[in-house]
């Protein structure tokens, strides 16, 4: 992630110096019609990727939010769901905050929100600026491009088909010119990972990458990836990924080719009943760490120094793998993202009231 970040900043300075050219070649200007706003990710030059699971697409939006800032705001918004409800004219129980991401250039915070919880819920993108003010990031007049992730409804003369499968996007990241999308289907289990070159070309849904999980060299499952981050190990670009069946694995990005069969290498087992929600990587005192928000085990800090040295876990009795500590004082963390080089941003549910707050990286 840190490598990506430096690349991003470099590219931005260059763009800013050269011209105010469009960040999304071939983009349309106008109103973005999305049916839902879920997973978010930032690319280069302030491009925001929005996962629209209901609409079956990923939409790239030029935020034009490219004024560089090294430091994020000291964010501490109590009841951010109540504030979002007031802004959108509904009650707090009708607000869902689906994802939180920080623009790595401006350090402004973007939230994907549903106004309403039923099938007619309205997707909204909100933004928290440097003063900590919550406002709408309007999608009414922006430059955008979209890529379908689901195959269109099959034209089927027989009338069979039941209802179409929904692919729920659980994570998006921009890595070396590709948008990598993890999803989970509401029907068959073996969902694909997708890697779509950006800028998007054409309208065809990309071919998926068949993700397998091999447990201890013996049992092999076609298994969906739930969350992941780009990560450099040595000179090789990897993604660190968590499957739905828990283990943390590393996968070289060079293997993520359409139609490929890919199996991750297990580097940590995170324990029973535990589900990784979000991950970030960072450097502190010249040492590499990972921070992982989990459903059952709070937030874990993992030592990521020399990640290449840990041998793969190949037996249940193996105690190898990344050493970690659990930050016991952090409870109810639903989303975790990097705010700036010194701080993380947390979305914390305190039993109904949801807070958005910055925290120094541990």
């Amino acid at each position, binding site marked *: 992630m840190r490598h990506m970040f430096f690349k991003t900043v470099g590219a931005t300075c260059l763009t800013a110096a050269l011209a105010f050219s469009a960040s999304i070649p071939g983009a349309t200007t106008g109103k973005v019609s999305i049916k839902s706003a879920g997973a978010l990710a930032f690319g280069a030059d302030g491009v925001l990727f929005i996962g629209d699971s209901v609409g079956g697409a990923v939409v790239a939006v030029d935020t034009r939010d490219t004024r560089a800032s090294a430091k994020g705001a000291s964010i501490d918004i109590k009841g951010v769901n109540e504030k979002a409800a*007031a802004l959108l004219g509904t009650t707090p129980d009708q607000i869902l905050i689906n994802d939180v991401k920080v623009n790595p250039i401006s350090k402004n915070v973007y939230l994907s929100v549903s106004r309403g919880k039923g099938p007619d819920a309205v997707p909204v993108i909100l933004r928290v600026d440097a003063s900590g003010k919550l406002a709408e990031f309007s999608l009414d007049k922006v430059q955008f491009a979209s890529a379908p992730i689901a195959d269109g409804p099959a034209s089927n003369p027989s009338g069979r*088909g039941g209802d179409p499968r929904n692919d729920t996007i659980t994570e998006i990241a921009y890595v070396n010119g590709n948008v990598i999308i993890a999803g989970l289907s509401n029907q068959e289990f073996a969902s694909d990972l997708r890697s779509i070159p950006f800028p998007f070309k054409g309208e065809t849904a990309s071919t998926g990458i068949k993700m397998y999980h091999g447990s201890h060299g013996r*049992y092999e499952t076609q298994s969906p990836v739930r969350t992941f981050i780009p990560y450099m190990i040595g000179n090789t670009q990897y993604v660190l990924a968590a499957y739905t069946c828990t283990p943390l694995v590393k996968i070289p990005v060079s293997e993520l080719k359409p139609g490929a069969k890919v199996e991750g290498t297990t580097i940590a087992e995170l324990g029973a009943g535990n589900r990784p929600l979000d991950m970030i990587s960072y450097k502190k005192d010249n040492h590499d760490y990972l921070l992982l928000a989990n459903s059952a085990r709070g937030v874990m800090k993992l030592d990521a120094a020399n990640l290449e040295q840990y041998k793969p876990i190949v037996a249940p009795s193996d105690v190898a793998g990344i050493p970690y500590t659990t930050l016991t004082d952090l409870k109810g963390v639903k989303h975790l993202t990097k705010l700036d080089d010194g701080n993380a941003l947390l979305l914390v549910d305190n039993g109904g009231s949801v807070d958005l707050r910055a925290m120094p990286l541990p």
Partner: protein
Amino acid sequence: MAVLFGTVAIAANITLQLDKGTFQVAGWNATAEPAGGWASVFSVYAGKGDVPALLGSYEVENHVLVFHPRFPIGAGVHYRAVFSAPGSNAGADKAEAEFDGPARATNALTRVERIYPSTDVFPSNTLRFYIYFSAPMSRGEAYQHIHLIDADNNKPVDIPFLELEQELWDQNNQRLTVLFDPGRIKRGLVPTDTIGPPVVEGKHYKLVVDADWHDARGVHLVEAFEKDFRGSPSDRKPAEPKTWQVTAPKAGSTDALVVVFPKPMDYVLLQRMIGIFDSHGEIAGKIAVDRNETEWRFTPRDAWKSGTYRITADNTLEDIAGNHLDRPFDVDKFETITKHISTDTTSVPFSVR
């Protein structure tokens, strides 16, 4: 929508009104927009305490300042409109008024209609189930309301499901897909080895859906729902089409072709992963699934003709334990049970006479 008037504060002749979904400043002559924008004189708040002003746009209609909220007036929302004329001090040119949106619905109408698998015997590695509701539901609270109870000791099973923030609904929020924790099903993983599968062979369970789950109108269900089942041995055999029993219909009839599987298959996948083909292509007809998802029937639109047909199924068709037609859910690479078939589909021919 109900006409919504709440308490209306009156300062001088200025009244704040909520009319046809817009907030208006009546009795004040709106001319040029002030330097700070219309929001500097008139704002509406839809929450208590330090909250941002309601999103919307301003318009002057016949010298009346009108605020159009970005979203329709919300049920159960309390609004506070605040007006302060440019340059005014306390007193005459200020007004504040409160309004209530329409009352929220309170009448429970929605129920759980059914759960698949419909069988009352679940292999201990059962992968998923589907809950069908009679009307659209709310997202975001599913896992608080679904419980697996060990009926032998009446205690809840600890974290049996894959609790996803992104709940797996169909397009209309009427069918929820719930996965048992794959980490507890798949062999060789720490969760499977330490806490074991959520469903244990020989034990009795209740799948309970609470009544206080909210539908899309924000109202709880009519009643709770329970499904009893018993755990059976895990099933790691692919559901190979060679084990299917096919009963061919008679030529000239529109009788159903009947396919019987040796075990229950995934109800939703059965609706779209099997097709009937003749030499010209796929033929039209209706699919029905019965007998705890062990029977698949196809009734053609047009009468059967004499000849050869084929049943073609996607190899990704799963049984209720996630085994495909050509591979088990988790392949044991040391004791390979089945050969991998490299095609995407498997066909079974049948003749109509």
